[in-house]
């Protein structure tokens, strides 16, 4: 049966990296991508399997860092897209910044989670392009990099109420989310 034209890509893919095409990004990539492309690297503190379904929620090594910069599955995308990378960070009680779609933090807040606007500028979440969001996040890191480890430890300690709230809330959210399915199907 002829069913009219369907849409696909060659080669087939679900991710359109070409949506990031501004001049600044192009120049930055031209300068640095040779350092990364075609290479694998893993800091020696990182343990566990890459994206293993059995180990990806056991990431206690993340505790050794002050903040987790989550590079989500997509960044230039019409909707917030949250994967195990974000859930893992909440579960491990690590402060985070998200390199992802616009309004990823807003979505998390709508779910009832808290984020870290008391400690650094989270207005990156509202910026419309990936380039702007990334620049803003790296600027945050630049500012934090001026602090010593002891200061970072103190700041991280002050984030504990948010980290604990989020950990506790993930259980509430799971229950509410299942209830939401029950009520809306």
């Amino acid at each position, binding site marked *: 049966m002829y069913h009219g034209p369907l849409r696909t*890509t060659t080669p087939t893919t679900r991710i359109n990296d070409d949506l990031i095409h501004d001049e600044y990004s192009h120049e930055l990539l031209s300068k640095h991508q040779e350092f*990364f492309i075609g290479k694998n690297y893993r800091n020696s503190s990182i343990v566990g399997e890459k994206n293993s379904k059995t180990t990806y929620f056991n990431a206690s090594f993340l505790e*050794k860092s002050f903040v987790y910069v989550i590079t989500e599955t997509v960044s230039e*995308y019409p909707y917030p897209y949250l994967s195990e990378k974000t859930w893992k960070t909440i*579960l*491990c009680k690590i402060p985070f910044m998200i390199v992802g779609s616009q309004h990823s933090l807003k979505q998390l807040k709508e779910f009832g989670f808290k984020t870290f606007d008391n400690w650094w500028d989270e207005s990156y979440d509202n910026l419309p392009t990936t380039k702007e969001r990334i620049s803003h996040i790296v600027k945050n890191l630049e500012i934090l990099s001026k602090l010593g480890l002891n200061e970072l*430890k103190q700041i*991280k300690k002050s984030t504990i109420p948010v*980290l604990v709230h989020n950990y506790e809330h993930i259980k509430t959210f799971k229950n509410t989310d299942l209830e939401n399915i029950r009520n809306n*199907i």
Partner: protein
Amino acid sequence: MGLHEEAVDIINQKYNVLDFIDLVEFLDPEDLAARLMQYASREFLSNERLVVLHHDTDYYESLNSTGYNIYNFFRLCANYDISLNHVLFITNHYGIKSEIKNVEKQICNSSSTTVVYTSQWYDFPKWEHIENAKEQHNTQEISMLYSCLNGQARVHRLLVLSLLREKDLLDKGMVSYHFKN
């Protein structure tokens, strides 16, 4: 299947599910056509449902366009005369309802698909994962400013790493990347 068992049970308790169609399995739209063809012009009983699972990313030509998976699914429903009243669309794409309503209207002249948002997919922690993480939050072990773990090469990940390198921040982080094909 990508949806958590608990969520699947809730759906199965309410409906006689004829099929769980996980769009992640249909990179080639002809395979989706073959799967849907069996329901062409079917007269559904009132409690029968086709459940569509949409949890992986879709391909968008621009941020205002229609995702290819979404387009293909509704294109095929129109061509196979599949009743959208009996389609349950489960997704983690919060906000996608208006895109679906538009494409339904344009292609199917209908707006009857039930869209339900959830985060309960395979990559959301199970109860035991949550319980196991109970004691975790040792703030005294910080040795790095940040961590940034990267799986497959994507432009936004390359951009982050490039900018971190540009600003001499790369060695202040616990970084990984797996960009070798």
